[in-house]
């Protein structure tokens, strides 16, 4: 009961702040004012070699606003401002800064708030079960206990695990409200908890090998047991012992779910409306065409209960909806907010995200490569020769051309078996060719993060190593 009451009180307090921000900006001459208020608390406990290393705890609140000043027929002048000062004086300064900057910026014919008819009502906002009071109630002692258990499981798994970068248990809860002069108001809140265990082992020649494993969920009950995370972290780290380069060659590349997720993130950035109208993506003018192998279907689903990226409404107040982005390899849509939609002559896909600093841009929610029917083990077993990638390094992706070149480490596959660990090689190709070259999609999807993928295999890439 008390939980319901405090939610109601928080919602009312955040809306009231939002109303005051909108009113202050309007009074200074803003034709459109959209306020965002974020409030949150977090606790993080890190243990290293069995002893507490860091306990961090704090709450914070911030306000942000986007204002638009209409300039006749020429369009709107737009600016944003944010502050951690939520006092009356802070609100006044926030509104002044934003309106002053809006007058400095120049009219943009494509700028403007979303059509009033598209705005959702609060009564339409479904409860996505994103908040778990159990997570919110975790104290320092409990967080330390989880971290200690996780690390102890890693250290105890094998005598060769002698060192550790530590284990960290974190919980965060946050609430966010949006109030706009167009009449929209929305409130949401959620929790997130995670445990990461990072053992270190000694290798030949003074080298060390570090690895990790993690679990993260919105609800406490969904977390993997500490011992499972710790043991798996130890297994992953030990498996890297003796890693070496392999010869430069063309070969098949299998990406484990974490590595595959990173590729999916590149796809997401390449179909974001901002990248498209700026012509800064290799996927400009590709709607309706094949951009990936027929095995690839990618869905952005903000309505998944307990999903890490779930939201009932988007950052501009449009009702969230499930978007099939890639269907059997064909690109069906770009991620669009109101602005990028207008720039491209399309309709918003309800993909607007509003950051705490007031700025708005398109984003993904739960962006998921739909699992296939092949198990991860079968993918390895069916690979004659190739690289199984567990980690990638660096920023080697050119969004304009799609060129991809990154550091990689993992295992060498020979005759369907992982043989020895590999490090210090790069894998290169072009994202367009890579997505089209996916010839196996695994069945092993775990929704730990808002961008998620099962194991995938790409038929051929260039691996650069020795020689």
């Amino acid at each position, binding site marked *: 009961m008390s939980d319901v009451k405090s939610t109601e009180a928080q919602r009312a307090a955040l809306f009231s702040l939002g109303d005051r921000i909108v009113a202050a900006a309007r009074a200074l001459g803003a034709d459109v004012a959209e306020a965002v208020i974020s409030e949150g608390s977090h606790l993080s406990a890190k243990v290293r070699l069995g002893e507490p290393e860091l306990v961090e705890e704090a709450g914070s609140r911030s306000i942000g606003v986007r204002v638009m000043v209409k300039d006749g027929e020429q369009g709107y002048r737009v600016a944003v401002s944010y502050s951690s000062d939520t006092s009356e004086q802070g609100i006044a300064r926030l509104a002044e800064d934003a309106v002053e900057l809006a007058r*400095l910026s120049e009219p943009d014919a494509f700028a403007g708030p979303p059509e009033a008819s598209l705005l959702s009502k609060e009564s339409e906002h479904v409860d996505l079960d994103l908040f778990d009071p159990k997570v919110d109630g975790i104290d320092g002692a409990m967080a330390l206990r989880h971290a200690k258990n996780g690390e102890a499981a890693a250290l105890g798994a094998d005598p060769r695990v002698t060192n550790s970068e530590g284990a960290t248990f974190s919980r965060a809860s946050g609430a966010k409200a949006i109030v706009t002069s167009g009449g929209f108001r929305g409130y949401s809140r959620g929790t997130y908890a995670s445990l990461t265990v990072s053992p270190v082992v000694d290798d030949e020649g003074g080298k060390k090998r570090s690895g990790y494993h993690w679990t993260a969920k919105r609800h406490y009950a969904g977390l993997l047991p500490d011992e499972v995370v710790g043991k798996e972290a130890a297994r992953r780290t030990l498996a890297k012992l003796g890693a070496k380069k392999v010869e430069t060659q063309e070969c098949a590349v299998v990406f484990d779910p974490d590595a595959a997720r990173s590729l999916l993130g590149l796809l997401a950035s390449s179909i974001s409306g901002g990248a498209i109208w700026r012509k800064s993506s290799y996927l400009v003018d590709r709607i309706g065409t094949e951009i990936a192998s027929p095995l690839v279907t990618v869905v952005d689903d903000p309505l998944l209960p307990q999903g890490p990226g779930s939201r009932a409404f988007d950052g501009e107040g449009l009702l969230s909806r499930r978007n099939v982005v890639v269907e059997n390899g064909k690109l069906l849509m770009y991620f669009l907010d109101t602005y990028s939609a207008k720039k491209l002559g399309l309709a918003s896909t309800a993909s607007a995200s509003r950051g705490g600093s007031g700025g708005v841009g398109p984003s993904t929610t739960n962006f998921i490569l739909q699992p296939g029917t092949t198990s991860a083990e079968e993918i390895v077993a069916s690979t004659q020769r190739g690289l199984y990638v567990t980690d990638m390094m660096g920023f080697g992706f050119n969004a304009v051309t799609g060129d991809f070149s990154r550091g990689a480490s993992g295992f060498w596959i020979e005759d369907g078996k992982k043989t020895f660990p590999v490090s*210090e090689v790069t894998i290169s190709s072009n994202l367009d060719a890579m997505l089209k070259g996916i010839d196996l999609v695994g069945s092993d999807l775990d929704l730990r993060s808002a961008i998620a993928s099962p194991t995938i295999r790409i038929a051929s890439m260039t691996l650069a190593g020795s020689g």
Partner: protein
Amino acid sequence: MTHRYTAPFSSNGSSPIDTAIAERLLAVALSRGGDYADLFFEYEVSGSYGYEEGILKSAGRGVSLGLGVRVRKGEATGYAYCEDLAIEAMEHAAKIAAQIASEGGKKPVGLQPISTPSRYPVSELSFDVDGAAKRELLRRADVAARALDPRITRVEASLAEQIREILIATSDGKIVTDSQPLIRFGLRVIAEENGKRRAGSSGGGGRLGLSYFEGKSPEWHAGEAVRQALTMLDAREAPAGEMEVVLAPGDSGILLHEAVGHGLEADFNRKKTSNYTDQVGQRVASELCTVVDDATIPHSRGSIDVDDEGNVPEKAVLIEKGILRGYMQDRQSSEHFHVPFSGNGRRESFKSHPLPRMTNTLLLAGEHDPEEIVKSVKKGIFAKKFGGGQVDISNGDFVFSLTESYLIEDGVITAPLKDVNLIGNGPDVMRKVTMLGRDMELSDGIWTCGKDGQSVPVGVACPTIKISAITVGGTQR
């Protein structure tokens, strides 16, 4: 301090923090038995301007204020922060941080102000300049880039400005303030020809005001970005495999930052998780290499007058003629290694605890003629511009990506190459530095370093460098 924005905790602010209040808060922080505590007050104002499609399309400003309280007990740290300088809120944060300890401990020492150098005096902060002047600088870049070549189809110019006021009080008796200005200009252009689209960019800045543009004008950056984009229209696939690589002076310091810099941050060595652990006094690079962390370079992006734990950094030799001399220290690591504070304890904001971090990392010049270095390469790569890098501390493997590079054939720089990654192992690559130019250059202020989720501005500098073998991650056999 700007005319418009005054740190609330400064003596003429709305909630001035004097020695008495700081001492009271430190006493609360140590009330449960901590060994050491510090207070980190921070007031930061940021501004951003984005010019696109011939108009100033976006403008933004943000203000953040807070106090971070840290309490150390043995190897453990308690950390809490608040965004409100009401005494109750600050005491609450101090009490939460204090909970890391439960017995024993030390009492705080009376606070004495310490003097600091002045490495980035600014006569006029960019915040005190009318917004229209900043818009005009961006417009000039836009106009210049478009005028240079009809194939330039898009131009994006941006300016970010920041002022960070900090006040640090420590339980061992120091109280110190600093005012850290920072600006960063960026320009990105796209060239199109026969359906091909390629990007080029240029940027810079540092701890100064708009006087930055007296050294490098918006037009200069336009020329540089356009040159790169047009060059890239002809870029071909890069080779794959181990070969000789020559790095241009300046931004190539990124290699140094990744290959040795991070591995020499003391926390990794204290925890024995770095591959440079226990190697002080040993050879870790070719004898040509002398590596220095230098926080004193005037107006450089990575320079600081005082670190975020109240210590003044100087110029520290990390590697001397290939021999490892020492690590970059924060307080906790200094105590562990029984060495003086090196002033490398930095944090992203009041919401974060300090970590050993680089400031400006330099590989000192050698004696070779840069042209001779290129001439000495039979088949290899000349690396001119970089997109960033990353390192695995535990084994020293690092990558960095090239956004502008060329083939070297028989000692001559020839065809431009598409974006490509280099991968190597830090200690291995540093031993393969076989030539160093006499042409030292400091990167223009664009680099930001990330560690444990915290970002801080850094600088890098180096001469022309030849590496005898490193793996180039292209696609051509």
